[in-house]
């Protein structure tokens, strides 16, 4: 640490300009220091290769303290400590000769950006293995699939041979671009993501014996009957018939029942049976049927889609047993009806005797918002639905 002024006793290393292994010329600035009088650059007293930085940046030491050592016997041009090999001769086209990635030329970067190409997927024929404009243009022309993100360490570029497909040659490999989602898909997606993000989703599942429903439904599907049972349960547990917006919970008197309708590939829509609590199960059946038909033929009016207080979704006919549906915002719960499957169950008769019987069983899966409810409330509600279903009588 040099003496900078008569009264200065110590100095602080602000920044090293050289690191070990670097060549420094005599009088070339080697370090920046600061004292209470001045901030200054210190020229090297000798030429040579920096061997060791003894004092680190930020440290304050007394004047006279050794700051660094320089090997004055070394010669410039010798390989830096960091360099494993001398630089390769310019004529040889090498891939990664000195550990550095080959440069990306401006035009290659621009074209790659314009087409969202990951350059690591393009093989380069240029110097040091770099990707040339020609390489990139050829790559784009072939329409090779482009990975959307940098491959992970564990992912290899190995591609398995695709299984022979019945598809015609016209069904070629997907274009590199991919297909943009439809507006409906995007909207559904946004709604789902938002719902998951905002609500504290929990799913409670209750098993129910559908014997009574099966006996009563006739030619109707069981949906309207279960819907009727659900409405009855909602009257008993009004907190489930509510909407939550921010921290504001609104419990509704009326039940406006949303029924999810699949539109096939396109997506799904949830038309609403308004004032469903006023309808019998036949009335519910008729309304649901009408709404579904008009949903599929795109004849719903805007106020038939929205304002529900509770939603039922019923994909059961496809055979799935359980599901964890996503709540239809801003409601606090959604009930998913899955398949009804005949199973052997234990039945207890009036005398308390147990026996095995074959019964049509189903699972009522309800996702609910823990911000508005607790597990007990959810379970109690589902218990009521089960009771109404199992005790169904016209």
């Amino acid at each position, binding site marked *: 640490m040099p003496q900078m002024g008569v009264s200065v006793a110590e100095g602080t290393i602000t920044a090293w300009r050289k690191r070990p292994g670097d060549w420094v010329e005599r009088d070339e600035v080697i370090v920046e220091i600061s004292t209470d009088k001045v901030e200054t650059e210190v020229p090297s007293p000798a030429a040579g290769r920096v061997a060791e930085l003894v004092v680190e940046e930020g440290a304050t030491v007394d004047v006279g303290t050794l700051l660094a050592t320089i090997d004055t016997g070394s010669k410039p041009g010798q390989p830096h400590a960091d360099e494993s090999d001398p630089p390769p001769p310019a004529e040889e086209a090498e891939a990664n000769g000195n550990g550095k990635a080959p440069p990306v*030329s401006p*035009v290659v970067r621009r074209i790659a950006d314009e087409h969202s190409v990951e350059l690591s997927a393009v093989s380069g024929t240029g*110097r040091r293995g770099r990707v040339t404009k020609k390489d990139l243009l050829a790559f784009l022309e072939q329409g090779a699939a482009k990975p959307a993100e940098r491959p992970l360490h564990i992912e290899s570029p190995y591609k398995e041979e695709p299984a022979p497909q019945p598809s015609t040659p016209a069904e070629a490999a997907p274009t590199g671009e991919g297909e943009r989602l439809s507006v409906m898909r995007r909207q559904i997606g946004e709604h789902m993501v938002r719902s998951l993000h905002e609500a504290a989703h929990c799913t409670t599942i209750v098993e129910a014996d559908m014997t009574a429903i099966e006996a009563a439904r006739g030619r109707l599907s069981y949906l309207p009957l279960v819907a009727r049972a659900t409405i009855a349960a909602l009257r008993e547990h009004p907190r489930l018939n509510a909407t939550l917006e921010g921290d504001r919970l609104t419990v509704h008197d009326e039940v406006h029942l949303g029924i999810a309708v699949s539109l096939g590939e396109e997506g799904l829509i949830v038309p609403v049976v308004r004032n469903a609590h006023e309808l019998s199960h036949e009335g519910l059946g008729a309304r649901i049927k009408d709404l579904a038909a008009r949903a599929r033929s795109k004849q719903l009016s805007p106020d038939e889609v929205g304002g529900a207080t509770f939603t039922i979704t019923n994909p059961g006919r496809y055979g799935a047993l359980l599901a964890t549906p996503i709540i239809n915002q801003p409601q606090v719960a959604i009930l998913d009806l899955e398949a009804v499957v005949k199973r052997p169950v234990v039945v207890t008769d009036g005398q308390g005797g147990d026996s095995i019987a074959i019964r049509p069983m189903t699972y009522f899966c309800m996702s609910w918002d823990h911000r508005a409810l607790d597990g007990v409330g959810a379970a109690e509600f589902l218990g009521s639905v089960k009771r109404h279903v199992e005790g169904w009588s016209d």
Partner: protein
Amino acid sequence: MPEITYLEAISDGLREEMRHDESVFCMGEDIGEFGGAFKVTDGFFEEFGADRVWDTPLAENAIVGAAVGAAVEGLRPVCEMQFADFIACGFDQLVNVAGKMYYRQGLAVPMVVRLPSGGGFSGGPFHSQNPEAWFLQSPGLKVVAPSTAEDAKGLLASAIRDPNPVLYLEHKNLYRRVKGDVPEGRYETPMGELRVAREGTDLTVVSYGAMVHTALEATEDIDGASIEVLDLRTLCPLDRDGILESVRKTSKVVVLHEATRSCGVGAEVSSLIAEEAFEDLDGPVVRVTAPDVPIPFSPPLERAVLPQVDDVRKACHDLLAY
């Protein structure tokens, strides 16, 4: 269409202009009865007389200065420097009087200074220079450098008709070595427009003057690559759009000129490309030029200094492989 030499084309062009407009006249050393050091004005004295073909004293500032005076009074002088190198002796009048007159005073100076430039024949340091860069740095002067016989005639006509001082670089080594079909009668080749000497897609060589021929020869077949060669023809004003259009197409550029390296046309073109077409580059812009040395006299030394066909070939080859 007759095939004539580059020299004959210059002579032809000058003669046509002098016949067309009697305000056009020539001034220079030994251009009268002697017909000029390179015989460009051979026969002119007989046709146009002593007044319009003036054998001046050996005084370049006088030639250029008097040309300024005559030009502002409505004549169209065509000065000849016996060698381009001697423009240094008329530098002051050219740069300070001729070049700045219009900007300062709104007084146009329609004059041409013909400069027999370039080397390749053991002319030595004072008979081989390519001084264009000095004047590209000096606002108010236009500079042209034809490489073909056809352009030599047409560009001279344009230079004479232009109301500004125009430096006309005629490369001495092309005088008799280059021939071409040259239309008869008067025509003007537009200034400020380059010519695509050969179209290509893989690499562009930007050049002018004698080096255009070197470029064409060197790039006929380099690993089968398709190489575009541009003949700038006008150095000021530069055809920036023409250059950039080619760069966008090929993305690799070699700038070739016989003039020395530092701050020459190559430096200007490289800079232009870096500023305006950076995202079209697939490699560095490379210059092939004479190094910063006086042009030596002895043939092996001169050959080592002036860019040769092999130098161009190597530069193109290396850039193609980049």
